[in-house]
């Protein structure tokens, strides 16, 4: 192996410094703040976080869990159609359309959903003018449902992109063999294709989960604040009270949630590696 040159190190140094300064240092700082009170170790901030925000912790988990589940179902369906469908125009149209939300930032998506999902918003108005709904039957989706819809709309394309790519690269002869033996396309998708791309799906879902956990703009813009997601509570702790310790405790709780997901992913990953090695 060639000795790393000074020049090479110099090139990496800014990136390393950036990671240390902008991630590791604040992370350590936030852990310190969350676990100390007047310089001593203390769980007081966590007690406060749980006392005030336990509902919101559950709410956050439910919202993101449900969103991840819906994203999984929708991405499998769409990526499956893209890979297995024999209807040319459908594939062409889907291919054109599904990527669009990828290029739209969360905050813009939030803003659009605010007017789209409202009681007298675009969606209901369209349904009413089509005669599907009566104006008295319309309801506002600007609550937890709005958050889920926005998350799914925004994150599904990302998962589809990864999943469709993985599906396209598997050995098609397995699918064709199944089809020749009379298996339906749905059965081929579930029993042949999915097991081969499970790893990719899991990675994409874990990344989506973590991304959604960190979004502030969507719960802020789409839904009222009772209950709300942890990001909003963190922002509120800082903005209203200048209370960084409790905000940091909430932050540590969301690291915890992320860590569980990461652990599931790593364990799965390791098992696969072990099986691959045999």
């Amino acid at each position, binding site marked *: 192996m060639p000795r790393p040159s000074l*020049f090479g190190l110099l090139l990496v140094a800014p990136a390393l410094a950036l990671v240390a300064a902008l991630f590791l240092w604040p992370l350590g700082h936030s852990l310190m703040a969350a676990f100390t009170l007047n310089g001593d170790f203390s769980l007081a901030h966590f007690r406060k976080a749980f*006392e*005030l925000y336990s*509902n919101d912790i559950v709410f956050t988990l439910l919202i993101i869990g449900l969103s991840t589940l819906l994203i999984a179902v929708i991405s499998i369906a769409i990526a499956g159609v893209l890979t297995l469908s024999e209807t040319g125009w459908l594939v062409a149209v889907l291919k054109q359309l599904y990527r669009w939300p990828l290029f739209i930032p969360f905050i813009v998506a939030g803003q659009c959903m*605010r*007017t789209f999902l*409202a*009681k*007298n*918003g675009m969606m209901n108005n369209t349904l009413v003018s089509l005669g599907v709904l009566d104006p008295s039957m319309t309801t*506002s989706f*600007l609550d937890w449902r709005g958050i889920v819809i926005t998350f799914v709309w925004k994150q599904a394309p990302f998962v589809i992109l990864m999943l469709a790519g993985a599906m396209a690269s598997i050995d098609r002869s397995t699918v064709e063999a199944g089809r020749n033996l009379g298996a339906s396309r749905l059965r081929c998708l579930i029993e042949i294709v999915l097991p081969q791309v499970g790893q990719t799906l899991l990675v994409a879902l874990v990344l989506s989960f973590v991304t959604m956990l960190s979004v502030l703009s969507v719960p*802020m*813009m*789409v*839904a*009222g*604040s*009772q*209950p*709300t997601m942890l990001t*909003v*509570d963190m*922002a*509120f702790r*800082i*903005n*209203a*009270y*200048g209370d960084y310790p409790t905000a940091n405790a909430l932050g540590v709780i969301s690291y915890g949630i992320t860590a569980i997901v990461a652990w599931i992913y790593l364990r799965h990953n390791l098992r696969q590696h072990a099986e691959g090695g045999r």
Partner: protein
Amino acid sequence: MSTKLKIALALAASLTLPATALAQTLNVATAGDQNMVDYIKDFLGPMFEKANPGVKVVAVGTGPGDSGSQKIYEKLSAQKAANADKWDFDVIVAHQKMSGQMVSEGLLAKYREKIATGALVTSPTASNALGTNVDGFVMPMFQSQTAIAYNPDMVKAPPATYADLREWVKANPKKFGYNGIKGGMSGVAFTAGWVYAFGGDAEKLIKGPYEAATKASWEAALAELKAFNQNAVITPGNAGTLDMLNRGEIAMGPVWVDMFYTWMNDGKLPPTMKLKLLSPGMPGQPMYYAVPAKAAQAELAAKFIAMATSPQVQADGIVKKFNWYPGIDAKHLEGKLDDATWKKLFSDLTPDDLSKNAKPFPIAPYFNDILESYEKKVVN
């Protein structure tokens, strides 16, 4: 050394060299929405540069709400802790809560008596910021006020008091909306007003002194607010309430008066909408102009504020452009404003309403107690 590396080093060096400063730069940091930054950049800045050749006004926005003020505080506090000779901001525009804290931590300079317009201020908020004595350290830039906006097509006789509103909401479920306490200050103001109305001694919350035990006396009021919320809509933000009013989804909701008129002017609210100030009172707040204790351009900063608080600028900028109430006494603006503007600002809410029912926010410790009690008792 390779040529590439040389170029890279040269580039890096040029970036780190201090930008060659103009003769004089006045750094103005403002909390608040983008409109505040635009106001300084496009309106006050050019005006001041014209009157003072060689001076450049640089406007920096630190973000909306108390968090914007918090950022200004954090910056000044850090520069003080680092023993910096000259601090980066010359003029700051901040909210009450943080301004009070900045004064008590010695981060601001006493300048009001040095400028001519200082004598034009009569508002009690000029000397008292949520319980902190800030006399001399701040000039109110404007006064903003919350009130209940309502749609006269849906509400023939708007409630006049919080108690009336409570009954009205019972009779008309899901027709009143507000944004809770995490979605912006109009909801916070509504909540504070609720505690003024049902929580006992409002005067004590506004003037102090603070007693930690007081919050226990709000139990009943907050339990009622929880019941009230069952029949209210929680909207997404200050703008969310206005949006829902505009779309006819709710008939009533607390709003900032300036936002209300600005949205109306922009055609985002029907011109038929009206305002009502509930008794016994709803809070409003000023934003302050202040000068940091070690501003590099303290003289210029005071001059800038004197210009910004002069009657003509207050009339043209604050009242006409933004529909805020002036920071200096409104009587100094008479004759500087056209009749229509004057009437519009004082038609729904008469000066009499304002003097009776426009209240300050509670002093800072009560303010925090109200928010936290709301989190504990109403949301949980």
